[in-house]
């Protein structure tokens, strides 16, 4: 059965290219993707996770305000009895940060996995397969294909 993942850019951020490519890659890998797009609030993530009975929530942030935007996010998920893997990826702090420190900070906030902006879509796909127990047979035949867009 295909797993459902919620995808979106949190807060006031409008960087769309990364999630567009991630959306294509996840869909090609056999996931049901609910792409909330840019400028998505915490409430919209939570509502979508409930409405779609999601298996994971993937949060993207490129503009440096991720910490302020994500404060209280996991409390909100918990108060709605949502217990599911949460990933965050991108440029997570303003300026030239120390990545290990940034990663630990977001792990402490409750994120299951924290990715930097160099992450390839395949790494997120592999992590999801591991965290959601997607079996090898389920993955069979759902390898990323080139998606033909021209006619």
């Amino acid at each position, binding site marked *: 059965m295909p797993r459902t993942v919620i995808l979106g850019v949190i*807060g*006031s*951020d*409008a960087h*769309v*290219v990364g999630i*567009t*490519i991630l959306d*294509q*890659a996840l869909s090609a890998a056999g996931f049901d993707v609910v792409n909330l*797009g*840019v*400028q998505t609030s915490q409430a919209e993530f939570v509502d979508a996770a409930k409405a779609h009975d999601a298996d994971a929530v993937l949060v993207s942030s*490129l*503009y*440096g*305000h991720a*910490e*302020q935007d994500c404060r209280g996010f996991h409390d909100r998920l918990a108060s709605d009895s949502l217990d599911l893997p949460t990933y965050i990826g991108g*440029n997570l*702090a*303003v*300026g*030239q*940060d120390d990545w290990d420190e940034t990663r630990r900070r977001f792990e402490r906030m409750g994120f299951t996995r924290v990715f930097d*902006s*160099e992450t390839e879509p395949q790494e997120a796909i592999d992590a999801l397969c591991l965290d959601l127990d997607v079996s090898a047979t389920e993955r069979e035949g759902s390898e990323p294909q*080139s*998606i*033909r*867009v*021209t006619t």
Partner: protein
Amino acid sequence: MVRDEQLTESELGRIAESLRDDWPTAQAVDFEESVEYHGSLPDEKRFAHVLESADKPLLQPRAGVPRLDKQVELLTHLWEEGGADLLPTTIDSYTRDNEYAKAQEGLDEARESGEDTLNGFPAVNHGVDGCRELVERVPGPIEVRHGTPDARLLAMVTFAGGFQSFEGGPISYNIPYTKSRSLAETIEHWQFVDRLTGLYTEFGVRINREPFGPLTGTLVPPSIAIAIGVVEGLLAATQGVKSLTLGYGQVGNLVQDVAALRALRALGEEYLPDDVTVTTVFHEWMGGFPPDEARANGVISLGGATAAFARPDKVITKSPQEFRGVPTMEANAAGLRTTRQLIDMLIEQDVTIDGIDEEQAFIERSARSLLDSVVSLGDGDVAQGTLRAFETGALDVPFAPSQSAKGAVLPARDDKGRVRILEFGELALDDEIREIHRTHLDARAKTEGRACSFRMVADDVDAISDGRLIGRPKEGWT
């Protein structure tokens, strides 16, 4: 219904009054007193004067931190150590969303913690006096750079605060920057900003306006960027703007970039009224940068070289730390100096590059086709034409997050690395133009032994940060 007509002074005043309750600092805005204040500024701080009288490309970085003292320190460093000719103030992303309370929270936190918790300078929160203190303490002319769809209050406060240049426009600060704002509304909001600019201009304060040329910053076909810049210029001119800077973002192919900058200037001068002074700005690469600073300097250098050949009036520079987000001030200054070195070494060389004229003619033909469709869809009214063009997809932007655009256009590089159009959607380009794009892309597909696909687009998006221009297949490619 929004029409491309000049706002009356009473309408302008009514809107200004209605904005005064949005944030306490708005109360301090006084137009007549502000005109007087601008009159007290010396010539070297008059943005339009400095830009329009320059005889070679002027350099301007991006820079914005939340605290006033730190912003002064940052801009002074970029002026003294980077050799910037024009200064910026980049506004934080909460202000861009009109979330002044969140910006205040970030500003308070920055003041308490000593860390830059916002990605820019919250000018509305600093208010008229804060902006004036900034304008007075920095050594050069200064522009507001942001990304705010509804920038009416930001314009009121920063113009009163002494800023004489303001980036953005109804399309370029909606389509790439927001999800659900209506285009009709942003056109109205920018008519206010442009009319306010026009009114200052009539009172002798020549405020410069700059539509944001790079749009989504990701493989935007030059004809689309140019058409949108000219449309925003036309809308601004109606409201009385006289100093207009049209922009374009580097795509990395030298021939296409030089051709595009020449086409931008030619069409800008042709389409805009004679009493509008048109200048051009070239943005160094706006897409993903290489993580390696040495390689990033290579990308910046190519931008500098392109500027030396194309001679735009202004260059917006990047820093070698672009990959990691907001750079340190030292890295930001380094990006300015790298660009300067390339321009100064190349600008007097007489170099002929094959293919520029042909590419320029192709870009102009395509941009004209888009512009003509806007005019005809609106029965001569550019505001209405813009709305219909985006509704129908006759005008469209690749990777647009906004629901106001179809977002059906997909670009890809051809075999020489020029940006072509792979998916046209309903874009107002005729079959002959489309066929030229297809032929170029087919040549690449043949070279790579694969079909044109989204995979190709995704590879192109990553290519420069991976150290190349064209996103060739990684495995089995020699």
